[in-house]
């Protein structure tokens, strides 16, 4: 919890230092990946203290589908534990009885026969241990189907809001369709508390899987096949997850952050995201760098470029993270990222454009203004 102190750093990055004129020393990370992670996890001030169930644990549900799964799991785990105790109990008893029987039979004064009694089988017993498991299996099937009927739904729940999640190697695109125009953002998904989210799942390349364990079970994003899943956050907070279907080199760094906001906050956020990108004359140099180099081929900044291959950057600076959720967004990290993304996320698809240090600083400063 000590990392609470650094919360402010994440949400309000320090003001950008002036552009150095000479080449700066080679970039060195100020903190280890582990330290950055710690900052990221704890930057959810609304989270109740992390219990043993963990920030991504399936036993700490915060949404109806995950809660129903948890409740079902108690029943299934219960049945399995009973079977486990019974079977292993019989095994242990059989072992000790069998060892003793052997010891008794091998005493010199033993009158036991050379071999124990041979039992070839018993029809009633065998029927019993066929029928009883069949009954258990029938019960399990029925409770599974009952839960499935509630959560494996093919039509949107009442009063739900549709959001589109598109998987890319190795980041997430989120789209909020609406009559006032579509809002497109990346990696950090904002949702209103208490309203069911009907999440449309698509993929731009290979198969990914959307998994935020505390909100819902996972569901695959498959190219050429649209899936849906749904959840409804119970409380304000940040819910973490990540891609759960192996999707290539950086599968491990395809993290999801779901921000559940109060409905009013959410509307404010959505309105803000709908606005065009900030144009700040003081960072014109950086804007030019962005527009003149290959950046614009892949990234959209409303009013400047419309590349679709990488994340939409129109409101980049309103996010907490870069690199699909594993690096906190601040000026140093962003500069290091642009300089050579493969240093931080080896194998990722964004190339280093080999910018000169002044260009690098300029474009970093520009991007940091895109609130």
């Amino acid at each position: 919890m000590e990392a609470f102190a650094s919360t402010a750093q994440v949400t309000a990055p320090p003001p950008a230092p002036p552009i150095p004129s000479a080449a700066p020393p080679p970039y060195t990370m100020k903190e280890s990946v582990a330290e950055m992670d710690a900052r990221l996890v704890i930057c959810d001030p609304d989270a109740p203290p992390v219990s043993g169930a963990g920030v991504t644990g399936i036993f700490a549900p915060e949404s109806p589908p995950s809660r129903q799964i948890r409740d079902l799991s108690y029943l299934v785990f219960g049945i399995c534990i009973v079977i486990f105790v019974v079977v292993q109990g019989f095994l242990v008893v059989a072992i000790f009885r069998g060892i003793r029987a052997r010891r008794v039979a091998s005493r010199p004064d033993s009158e036991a026969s050379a071999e124990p009694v041979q039992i070839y089988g018993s029809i009633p017993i065998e029927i019993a241990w066929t029928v009883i498991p069949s009954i258990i299996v029938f019960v399990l099937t029925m409770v599974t189907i009952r839960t499935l009927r509630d959560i494996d739904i093919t039509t949107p729940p009442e009063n739900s809001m549709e959001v589109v999640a598109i998987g890319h190697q190795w980041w997430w695109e989120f789209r909020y369709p609406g009559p006032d125009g579509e809002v497109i953002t990346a990696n950090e998904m904002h949702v209103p508390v208490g309203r069911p989210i009907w999440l449309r799942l698509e993929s731009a390349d290979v198969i990914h899987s959307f998994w935020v364990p505390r909100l819902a079970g996972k569901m695959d994003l498959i190219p050429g096949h649209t899936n849906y899943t749904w959840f409804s956050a119970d409380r304000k907070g940040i819910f973490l997850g990540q891609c759960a279907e192996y999707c290539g080199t950086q599968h491990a760094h395809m993290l999801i952050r779901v921000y559940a906001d109060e409905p009013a906050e959410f509307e404010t956020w959505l309105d803000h995201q709908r606005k065009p990108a900030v144009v700040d004359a003081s960072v014109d140099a950086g804007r030019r760098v962005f527009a003149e180099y290959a950046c614009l081929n892949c990234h959209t900044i409303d009013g400047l470029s419309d590349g679709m291959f990488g994340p939409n950057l129109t409101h980049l600076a309103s996010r907490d993270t870069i690199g699909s959720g594993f690096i906190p967004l601040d000026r140093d990290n962003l500069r290091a990222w642009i300089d050579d993304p493969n240093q931080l996320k080896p194998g990722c698809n964004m190339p280093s454009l080999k910018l000169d240090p002044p260009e690098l600083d300029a474009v970093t400063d520009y991007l940091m203004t895109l609130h």
Partner: protein
Amino acid sequence: MTIGSGHSSLAPLPGPSPRGRFWELVMQWAISVDHKKLAMMYIGAGLIFFLVGGIEAAFMRLQLAQAGNNVVDPATFNQLFTMHGTTMVFLVGMPILLGFGNYLIPLMVGARDMAFPRLNAFGFWLFIFGGLLLYFSYVGADGLYGAGTAPDVGWFAYAPLTSRTFSRGNSTDYWILGILVSGFGSMTTAINFIATILCMRCPGMKLMRMPMIAWMMLVVAFLVLVAIPILTAAQSMLLLDRTLGAHFFDPETQGSAILWQHLFWFFGHPEVYILILPAFGFVSEIMPTFSRKVIFGYPLMVAATVGIGFISLGVWAHHMFVVGLGPVLDSFFGATTFLISVPTGIKIFNWLGTMWGGRLQFTTPMLFVTGFVAMFVIGGLTGIMLATVPLDWQLSDSYFVVGHFHYVLFGGTVFGIFGALFYWFPKATGRLLDERLGKWTFWLLFIGFTLTFMPMHVSGALGMPRRIYTYEVDRGWEIWNLISSIGVPVQMAGVAIFLWNVVRSLRKGEVAGDDPWDAWTLEWSTSSPPPEWNFDRIPTCTSARPLWDRKHPEDPDAHYE
């Protein structure tokens, strides 16, 4: 050229030089069509691949011991788990189990060899060359440009990650061809098993008198014949996609990424039973011998085996609950998956029934098969949890699944294999493995195995996906991963002791004699090691336990049939 004339006039040939003797030995094995030699080569090659796959796993555990570790880079890590999975399934599990089938089937049914000995050798060499082809990708998969381009698409190689677009270079082609080639080997072996079991049983050995292993191998052979061609077809389609621009699995051109999953798992789930049924067979032979009791409920055991074989062909989509099949298919495949636990449960209960009232002798093989039962129960129960579709949505593709299938395939199959190695080593070599070292192997493997795989259930339930090369801190995963990694050296010690045991026992192990365990199946009636022709005189069989009948003429099994 004259043949047979003038030899006597030549000076006697000098004896073969040491080098000559070496090549003579190599040729003796390389051109052998003897099922026992082929079996030992299968098992030996499988054990070598087992060490390779184990080392790959050790590197993965080293990388995951801490969050943010940097032992291997992400690309290498992805190659490691791909090669580990592919190796353990296709180059360790299959060949060792088929190897045991090869060794035991003719001896157990009282035949002189397999039905088609040369086909048998052909199958073995296909397996070897398939395996070498797969591993040659480390050298050749990028042409002349460099090494280290082993396949990195995961052992189930989901489309479209395997397409030319996302998998450049030739590593995926090596994966396809290596498995394709060794798959043909498995098919020929399956044909051989079926022909041998159905046509070459000795007089008196009715189907319902066969040792359980023969039954298991018969079902396995049919499963191989049904499942492997599907994989071969799917891989051929993928090869066409990659090399000739076909579009079977390419969603951009109306191909289907889900089709690959259906085809792969239609192979993949029977494959799981191909890997576990022979181990069931080992347990069903070893447990009665060391309980000194006949197997409990033989007919039901046979019925359960055949039942598992059939049901296993109808459960494949339980690997695909997160694909979005819809509630109807989800329910159906959940139900069939639950259903398969009934015949599997019957087997476990019948083994308990066999032990119950017996006089147990805890030799190393008995330790391993008892460990098998205890561990397999856990793997089976976590399987029931995963069959619960909604729960699978949480646990699928998480470390929970990794824990689950290692309980089945390591706690199950590998423990069964070790039990079988200790049990039949004296038959194959004439010498017993050392019992004291054997018990060390068991306990180290048991403890190491539990340390490594039990915590995976926890990290999975805490939200850790599988196949990630590193993970974030503060999610409660570190301690469980650390424990998992600590288990690795313990297991390695167990395996090292086993290897030492083999080397030592081959030279100065206790001489076994024909029937060291006082067992009841036909292989123990011939010498150890058996002659090339197995039996001087083809035996006859009066019941499911022919040697019991010979040892107890006053109370033969035949009375109870």
